[in-house]
């Protein structure tokens, strides 16, 4: 699993001298709660909790994204730390409190400070701690004594997390806990098996506790006790874990399906809808119309029956970034009769992300050719080790970014949506009368290339 540092930043700047392009981080603090959620995420920015790559709080995912490590390894290390001593668990809960979620400007702790009731509940857990310590002492169960404090501190932290988390995170927590509570509310036919499981699990668990707490000098006893504990836990909670994993899988599949649909819409827009627009404009030239229709038919056929998506890069042996840029240059010059000046610095082999970048860049170039009224468009592409940037610039009419209707699929879907789906960003700067510049950037994953 590769953690992807999501960079979501979809602003439209209608003034080229916008100060926050250069000093963007400082504004995040002052932004009102509940306003725009996603802010610029610098590669070397602060540690954040990942939204995409998370099992519990997204801390492992965040660390992995920041350090460029594999999230699974980070998770294993965290679990080992947690098992070795309760301090690991406490540290995790504290991190949950003080690290902001990705795209959020506020930590949970910042909100918890003003949550009096939550703090009261957390403090009310102190008598419970005393009770646990007393029971541990009475049973001579040293593990209860050593784990009591960290577990209770964690519980107090979790109370604050739950009460002060953002809505989506709380919904997720509620969902998980509900699944746990529903253990007792299963369909009737499995009621019996549930009781059996509950009983069996409880017996195993109790046996484990007894064996461990009465561990004599034999080294075998704690081992057996631990095994019994684990077995009991699995019997008790196994089905719940399974359900959770299934839900997670379903959710991911649904998201992938939605993204595929959006990708297809963008492709149809780029090819079919663009051609239809051109046909309308040249309605008085039957030959031109026939030519356009034929070309579109061929393209559509090869998409539907040969699986070659229209406007995709790599279909005609285009394997590198610079070759893809040259293809854009050629195609837009041929179809729209406008001079395209393309400059490429550095070169890399194409992957899915870079194909998306090229497709979005082509759309921006076509837009410039169709709407700007300029005689030439400049394309500048630079491949750097960490990211690939693409600039499409014209000195044409420009437009007011705020006035483009929501139904204009071109910018919304084919450029912004496409970049976002592949983890990149799009910034459009346009000044009426001076021209437009579209800036696209896509982080690179050399480890996968």
């Amino acid at each position, binding site marked *: 699993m590769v953690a992807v540092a999501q960079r979501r930043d979809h602003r439209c700047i209608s003034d080229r001298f916008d100060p926050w392009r250069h000093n963007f981080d400082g504004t995040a603090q002052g932004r009102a709660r509940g306003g725009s959620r996603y802010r610029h995420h610098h590669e070397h920015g602060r540690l954040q909790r990942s939204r995409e790559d998370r099992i519990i709080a997204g801390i492992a995912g965040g660390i992995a994204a920041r350090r460029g490590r594999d999230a699974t390894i980070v998770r294993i290390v965290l679990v080992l730390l947690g098992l070795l001593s309760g301090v690991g668990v406490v540290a995790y809960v504290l991190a949950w409190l003080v690290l902001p979620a990705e795209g959020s400007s506020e930590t949970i702790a910042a909100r918890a400070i003003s949550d009096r009731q939550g703090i009261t509940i957390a403090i009310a857990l102190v008598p419970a701690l005393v009770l646990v310590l007393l029971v541990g002492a009475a049973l001579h169960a040293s593990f209860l004594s050593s784990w009591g404090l960290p577990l209770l501190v964690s519980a107090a932290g979790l109370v604050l997390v739950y009460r002060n988390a953002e809505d989506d995170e709380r919904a997720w927590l509620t969902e998980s806990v509900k699944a746990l509570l529903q253990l007792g509310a299963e369909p009737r036919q499995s009621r019996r098996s549930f009781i059996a499981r509950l009983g069996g699990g409880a017996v195993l668990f109790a046996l484990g506790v007894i064996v461990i707490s009465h561990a004599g000098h034999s080294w075998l006893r704690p081992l057996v006790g631990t095994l019994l504990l684990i077995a009991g836990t699995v019997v008790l909670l196994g089905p719940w874990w399974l359900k959770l994993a299934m839900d997670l899988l379903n959710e991911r599949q649904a998201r992938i399906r939605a993204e595929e649909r959006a990708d297809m819409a963008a492709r149809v827009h780029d090819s079919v809808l663009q051609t239809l627009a051109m046909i309308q404009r040249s309605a008085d030239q039957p030959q031109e119309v026939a030519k356009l229709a034929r070309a579109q038919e061929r393209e559509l056929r090869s998409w539907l029956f040969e699986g070659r998506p229209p406007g995709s890069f790599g279909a005609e042996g285009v394997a590198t970034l610079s070759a893809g840029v040259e293809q854009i240059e050629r195609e837009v010059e041929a179809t729209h009769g406008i001079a395209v000046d393309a400059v490429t*610095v550095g070169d890399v082999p194409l992957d899915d992300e870079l194909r998306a970048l090229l497709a979005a860049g082509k759309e921006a170039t076509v837009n410039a050719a169709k709407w700007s009224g300029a005689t030439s468009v400049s394309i500048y592409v630079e491949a750097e080790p960490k990211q690939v940037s693409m600039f499409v610039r014209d000195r044409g009419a420009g437009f007011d970014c705020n006035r483009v209707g929501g139904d204009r699929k071109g910018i919304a879907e084919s450029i912004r949506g496409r970049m976002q789906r592949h983890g990149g960003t799009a910034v459009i700067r346009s000044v009426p009368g001076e021209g437009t510049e579209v800036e696209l950037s896509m982080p690179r994953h050399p480890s996968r290339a």
Partner: protein
Amino acid sequence: MTTADAPRVFLVDDHHLFRAGVRSELGEAVRVVGEADEVAAAIELISERLPDVVLLDVHMPGGGGKAVIEAIKASHPTVRFLALSVSDAPEDVIGVIRAGARGYVTKTISGPELIDAVLRVASGDAVFSPRLAGFVLDAFASMPPGSELPSSLDPELDNLSPREREVLRLIARGYTYKEIARELTISVKTVESHVSAVLRKLQLSTRHQLTRWATERRLI
């Protein structure tokens, strides 16, 4: 009407039609003092007429623009050269710059922009087209980590400063000097001096990439 201080320009290109086109585009802004369609004639006529700026094609029979610059540069260092070409091959472009041209523009350049470029070169500045800026950024690309820097490299000459890189990037993105000055909040004069500094590095650097990179474009 040609003003008295308009730069004297000489055209070297093997295409008659193209020379005629450039001549009419330059119009009254400069004085065209002569033209030539091959290397030997160009060298002879330029030595005789000593123009301020020679507009020359990169590709020509008999050694190309590079041969013309090399022949003139030694005896008449005041003559300045501006390469004008459709050639896209980086090694040709870099070659002509390293021979001594003060700039490179593509033949798709518009009339007013060409005049501007000629005036700039006449006053001793450098002229970088977006394409040349891209080539230079590529040639001065940061070394891949792990590779040894040859000890012969002069850090002053063989690396671009961050500001110079910024200016080149904006040129490559199609910004004019005026727009670059506005974007970076510096004066046009400062932009010009950055570009001239890059030109100097390009001509003097011994960076081995400059000779090698043309064949194998950087794959990172």
